[in-house]
């Protein structure tokens, strides 16, 4: 396996009218080529902001900390993304080595330019194809993602396509430049379940075919179970648990992950009542000190939870959780 991406100590704050808020706090992870990593969290957990940081797509009021380091390993050598200054330098990354699929395809296509023209435009920018070749490649990609009658669709506008079709076109567009890393931000959330199943299948096929790395952002643990190799769970800007998908879903270690899984309605077990996680997600302006989850946690071990930020503790070789249940020696073995 070859390393594709390293994110180290990503910390990101936004200046707002109400003060400086921390959106992402000291997040580190890495991704191999061909790996699908799921980034799970509820609204406000910082998952989208984390993904956008990889292309420095966050708004101009964003401040990255000095020790934030994001490295993309390409064949011609590593790229230090934080050191890229202007949009000209960013071009290698944005749409070139990294592509992104957004949640709402209607909002991501320009409404007054045909789907085909938008696909050709980015190929002209990022590759050395001429427009004839770019058109051929685009139609081929539309066909590849299962859009029938691709040469007609090529000339159509986003509003003429159904939701599922638009998302397929979005995927075709994102993949036509053959990116090394694909960021998919809630790509199936706006779709109906039967269409979601089709799109998930399509994405899995394409990973196998193109061998790129994917960061799959979603709030749906079911979608993660079906697509990802590894998963990182975020809460209020921090990764609180990460590891191989089977271990995290079958033996969740962090009380938040456990709560999230217990809150999901389970079709095989209709008799168990739904168990909500008590309380609400705190506003980013009132980030709790210590462990960010301590205000809602049913397993608080003591004052340490509200004063000290927990370090990662290893459950197995690759599975780790940031929780004082596992950092306190006296509580080490007695996690209930």
């Amino acid at each position: 396996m070859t390393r594709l991406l390293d994110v180290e100590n990503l910390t990101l704050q936004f200046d707002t009218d109400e003060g400086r808020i921390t959106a992402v706090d000291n997040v580190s992870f890495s991704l191999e080529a061909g790996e699908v990593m799921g980034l799970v969290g509820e609204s406000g957990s910082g998952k989208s902001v984390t993904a956008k940081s990889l292309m420095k797509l966050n708004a101009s009021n964003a401040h990255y900390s000095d020790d934030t380091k994001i490295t993309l390993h390409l064949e011609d050598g590593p790229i230090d993304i934080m050191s890229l200054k202007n949009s000209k330098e960013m071009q290698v990354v944005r749409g070139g080595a990294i592509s992104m699929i957004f949640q709402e395809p209607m909002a991501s296509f320009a409404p007054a330019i045909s789907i085909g023209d938008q696909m050709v435009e980015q190929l002209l920018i990022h590759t050395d194809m001429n427009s004839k070749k770019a058109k051929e490649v685009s139609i081929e990609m539309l066909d590849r993602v299962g859009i029938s009658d691709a040469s007609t669709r090529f000339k159509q506008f986003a509003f003429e396509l159904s939701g599922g079709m638009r998302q397929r076109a979005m995927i075709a567009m994102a993949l036509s430049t053959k990116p090394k890393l694909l960021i998919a931000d809630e790509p199936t959330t706006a779709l109906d379940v039967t269409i979601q199943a089709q799109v998930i299948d399509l994405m899995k096929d394409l990973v196998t075919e193109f061998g790129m790395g994917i960061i799959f952002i979603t709030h749906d643990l079911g979608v993660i179970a079906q697509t990802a190799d590894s998963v990182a769970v975020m809460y209020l800007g921090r990764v609180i648990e990460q590891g191989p998908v089977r271990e995290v879903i079958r033996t969740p270690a962090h009380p938040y992950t456990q709560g999230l899984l217990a809150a999901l309605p389970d079709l095989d077990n209709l008799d168990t009542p739904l168990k909500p996680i008590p309380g609400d997600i705190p506003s980013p302006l009132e980030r709790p000190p210590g462990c960010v989850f301590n205000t809602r946690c049913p397993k608080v071990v003591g004052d340490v939870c509200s004063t000290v930020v927990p370090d990662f503790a290893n459950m197995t070789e690759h599975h780790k959780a940031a929780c004082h249940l596992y950092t306190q020696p006296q509580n080490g073995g007695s996690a209930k």
Partner: protein
Amino acid sequence: MSVKPLMSVRDLAVHFPLRGSLFGPKPVVKAVEGIDLDIAKGSFYGLVGESGSGKTTLGRALLRAVPITRGAINYDDGEAQYDLPSLSDKELKDYRKRAQLIFQDPYAALSPRMTVRDIIAEPLEVMGLTKSRQETDARVREIAAKCRLNLEHLRRFPHAFSGGQRQRISIARALVSGPQFIVADESVAALDVSIQADVLNLLKEIQEDMGLTFLFISHDLSVVAHVCDHVAVMYLGRLVETAPTRELFAAPRHPYTKALMSAIPSLDPDDRGKAQKLEGEIPSPTNPPPGCKFQTRCPFAIDICRKDEPKLESSGSEHNVACHRWRELMEEHALEDA
């Protein structure tokens, strides 16, 4: 159940006119067509379908919030009785006290310029249900407490609240006039999972405490499975299957219901690729296919499915299904299992 249903729907149709050409017949969208449905008093009735299936339109028809093209809807809660398609303005006003709606998006449904107290009190004032300010306040406090809202928060504005709290405010507003029948349209779809369970439990609790009847509209089968006692599945304006929840999930009969269930992403990473996948997408309601509406995507469609539209027929006590081939498919399935 031999009890008279609270809501009884026969051959209901809701058509919306489209802008057509000057000549020839005006085109219509048949959003809801030929619906027969009984909702028992005290039931938590689920209505499931994908976008464009007509579930919201059906829900609104039961509130008389869309014009009814054809058919009968009878409401009878034991105290009052209404024949919905022919309500006078005065009767409609009375009906609104008994039937209410909880919306999907708690961010859009609450006026940002009103305090929580005013939002909850507004229906009381509009409907003239209370005589004095004290009475209104007392009623607002009572209902807010029931919805687990902090009474000190009543003076605040909605922007200060999280999604889950806002949805509880919407629920309080819907309940304040003392309705018997509530339509909850995708009421938890906009909420995070950890909050969703809380709001679902609250709805369930209120329904049991106050003896209400709910029509719970959702695209999420697993949520419906957990809270509802009966479920109706819609596709392109038609009901394709209705049954008690347990029966439906234990033995779905319509190919669409089966496909819908198997499309839910399983939490088991080793289940990958086992789902039975549907090809294609839901056809446009302006140009529905002839015969069974599901035939264009159904893996079992034969000639008769393309010609005749199947009627919803009883397949044992309360389990109804609209499919030409359900008996046959069940037998085949039984053979495969044997």
